[in-house]
């Protein structure tokens, strides 16, 4: 018993310590004796029931228990005094607090003689009350919350599923919501506790497992799109897996799947449409360009910027997209005509489409342009290169002009011919009548004279017809195209005319330039030209006492100029063009029928040259000029 023999001071100190501990104990503590009377109560208990310690000590514990729980407690009390095991009871206290606090009660047996052994009845019970109201409330709230979550979970339109990540890294479905079951067509029961492979088959599950794996490894949400042949049909889903951490590892994955079947279909359609337009844009034969108009502060169009151009644009303009997009047209083509900018300014401002044809000097091309404004301030152009078409048009117009000229020449020719052939016919027919009359009257001399007229008229007609034939031959074909020294032709022609080299008994002075060039052309025809010009010069030498003929040439760009100059009668300036007309003769008394110079003109023109006459007037001589191109174009 020595250990009990401690000083009263020591005992008192122990009591104080115990009391302090007891009072500071966070749970409510009460010491109850066998009669159920409270011998000690700590502050926590007092605060549980809302009373002062003085109001509690000495009272029966029953007084502080809720009426409904009292009998239950009393019934268990004897057992509590005898049972070694600590029993936990839940009950409500009774005090001033409303609602009565709900507590968890633990009972500890105490005996004055020491630790109670076996079922030995203890002297006291240490009852500790810990309030469970809060916990209860939170459990209730949790239940409520779970209910709400459940509602939310199942009410979601998105399919939601929960996957458990096993210790070994395997994945199993835990839960799915109603939408999931409805949309995927798999019931919760079928899917629970199963692996993706079991639910979806090996093909898809491998993919899902990969995504899950990725999510677990990265520790971040993973999204993927998947088209599944589920029992509900082929669907496309956009699924997001979100990792849920627990106890230092990812224990769950929450998956949410949004159906994107229609979206995908629309997107696909848009993509295909877009692609179709892109293909159209890329393969359009027409150039296409989108521009932004630039105005000055007064709203006057200044310039425009290239926003987008297609490959045809590059092909048609020779401008490269990467070099011009983002730049303004005046940066790209500083020499561009104002008319382009003004036209486009009108389109961009008014929104009115426009079609026009215009030449671009910097690009040296003709374009046909359709311009329109997709939105204010912007304009687009669709255009084609019509340079070739324009060229053809010009060629066609040239051709038409040529044809018209030829046609009018022809009709002039027909007119002249029919007119001039009628002349001798009138003579022949007219004088035949006179001849008849003369013969009737026996005037043979007169008849002979008139017959002579008839003969000359017939000869003239023959000459005219031959001339016509010659002329038409010249107009049709050139025999061959040779290269020869022009001097040869001149010498030959001069020799052919040797018989005429004396003019009315006077010798003619011939001067031929020694350096006549080599020309291209129909040798025989060009020889005719020289012969006819020389013949003409001799014919119109007139009363010149010192007849002189000079043949020379000049060099000019692209052509040679030749001339035949005489010092004969000359031509009145007003008739200088007329001399080349068919059957035109300035002097009816000279020999010939007005064919020679017409022939000269024809031959020279067929060679692509020109011919003209120069004379200062009558008695002042005459110079006939003609040109020959140095290089011939198509001579047919």
């Amino acid at each position: 018993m020595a250990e009990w023999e401690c000083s009263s001071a020591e005992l008192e100190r122990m009591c104080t310590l115990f009391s302090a501990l007891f009072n500071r104990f966070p749970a409510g503590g009460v010491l109850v004796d066998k009669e159920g009377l409270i011998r000690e109560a700590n502050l926590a208990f007092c605060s549980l029931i809302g009373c002062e310690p003085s109001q509690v000590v000495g009272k029966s514990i029953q007084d502080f228990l809720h009426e409904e729980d009292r009998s239950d407690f009393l019934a268990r009390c004897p057992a509590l005094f005898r049972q070694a095991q600590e029993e936990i009871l839940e009950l409500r206290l009774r005090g001033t607090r409303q609602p009565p606090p709900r507590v968890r009660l633990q009972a500890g047996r105490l005996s004055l003689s020491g630790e109670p052994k076996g079922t030995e009845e203890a002297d006291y019970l240490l009852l500790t009350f810990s309030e469970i109201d809060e916990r209860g409330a939170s459990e209730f709230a949790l239940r409520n919350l779970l209910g709400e979550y459940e509602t939310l979970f199942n009410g979601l339109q998105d399919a939601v599923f929960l996957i458990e990540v096993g210790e070994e890294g395997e994945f199993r479905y835990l839960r799915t919501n109603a939408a999931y079951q409805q949309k995927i067509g798999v019931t919760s029961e079928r899917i629970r506790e199963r692996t993706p492979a079991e639910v979806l088959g090996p093909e898809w599950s491998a993919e899902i497992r990969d995504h899950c794996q990725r999510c677990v490894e990265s520790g971040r949400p993973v999204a993927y799109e998947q088209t599944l042949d589920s029992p509900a049909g082929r669907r496309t889903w956009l699924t997001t897996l979100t990792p849920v951490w627990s106890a230092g590892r990812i224990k769950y994955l929450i998956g949410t799947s949004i159906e994107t079947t229609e979206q995908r279909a629309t997107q696909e359609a848009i993509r295909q449409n877009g692609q179709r337009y892109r293909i159209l844009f890329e393969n359009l034969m027409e150039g296409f360009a989108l521009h932004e108009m630039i105005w000055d502060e007064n709203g006057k169009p200044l310039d425009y910027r290239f926003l987008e151009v297609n490959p045809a644009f590059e092909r048609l303009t020779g401008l490269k997209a990467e070099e011009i997009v983002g730049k303004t047209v005046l940066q790209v083509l500083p020499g561009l005509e104002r008319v382009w900018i003004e036209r486009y300014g009108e389109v961009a401002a008014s929104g009115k489409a426009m079609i026009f044809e215009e030449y671009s000097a910097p690009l040296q091309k003709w374009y046909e342009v359709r311009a329109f404004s997709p939105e204010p301030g912007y304009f687009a152009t669709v255009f084609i290169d019509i340079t070739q078409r324009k060229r053809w048009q010009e060629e066609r117009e040239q051709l038409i002009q040529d044809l018209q000229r030829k046609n009018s020449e022809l009709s002039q020719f027909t007119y002249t011919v029919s007119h001039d052939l009628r002349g001798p016919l009138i003579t022949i027919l007219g004088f035949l009548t006179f001849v008849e009359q003369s013969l009737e009257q026996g005037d043979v001399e007169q008849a002979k004279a008139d017959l002579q007229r008839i003969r000359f008229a017939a000869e003239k007609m023959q000459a005219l017809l031959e001339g016509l034939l010659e002329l038409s031959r010249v107009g049709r074909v050139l025999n061959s195209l040779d290269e020869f020294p022009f001097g040869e032709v001149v010498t030959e022609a001069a020799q052919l005319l040797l018989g005429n080299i004396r003019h009315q008994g006077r010798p003619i002075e011939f001067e031929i330039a020694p350096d006549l060039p080599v020309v291209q052309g129909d040798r025989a025809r060009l020889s005719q030209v020289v012969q006819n010009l020389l013949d003409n010069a001799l014919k119109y030498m007139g009363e010149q006492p010192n007849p002189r003929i000079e043949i020379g040439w000049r060099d000019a760009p692209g052509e040679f100029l030749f001339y035949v100059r005489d010092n004969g009668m000359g031509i009145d300036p007003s008739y200088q063009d007329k001399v080349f007309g068919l059957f035109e003769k300035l002097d009816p008394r000279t020999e010939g029928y007005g064919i020679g110079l017409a022939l000269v003109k024809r031959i020279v023109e067929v060679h692509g040259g020109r011919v003209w006459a120069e004379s200062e007037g009558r008695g002042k001589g005459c110079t006939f000029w003609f040109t020959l191109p140095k290089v011939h174009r198509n001579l047919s």
Partner: protein
Amino acid sequence: MELKQQQPIRILLVEDNPDHAELIHRVFRSCLVGNTFSHVEDGEQALAYLDREGKFADDQRYPYPDLILLDLRLPKMDGFQLLERIKSSPCHRHIVVIVLSSSREEVDVQRAYQAHANSYLVKPFSVDEMTEVLRYLGLYWLKWNVYAKRRP
């Protein structure tokens, strides 16, 4: 039938083809006796004739005409140019000008009348026709037509 006016009518033929000139002269002689007939070969001569230049100053040999028979196709100055010159001349435009051409072309006819030709005749192929043409021409222009006096 011979045609005669109180006053003889003076005719000037402008014709470059000597055969045609001879033809017309002969036909004229055969049916239009009593009138005077002169002939020049081209437009320049015709103007000189009208303006009484050079040898044409001789009024006896080259009487100033009341009527001109004009061929259109002439060397140098052609018939149209001559016609225009005559009809734009205050002195000569009163003269009756009858075109006698081998052309039937519409352009020629048009142009002749535009230049105030008084009549347009096509040279016939036969002498008989030519005779007939000149006879009727004579009947009208030489017998009945009243001429303006030459302006001083």
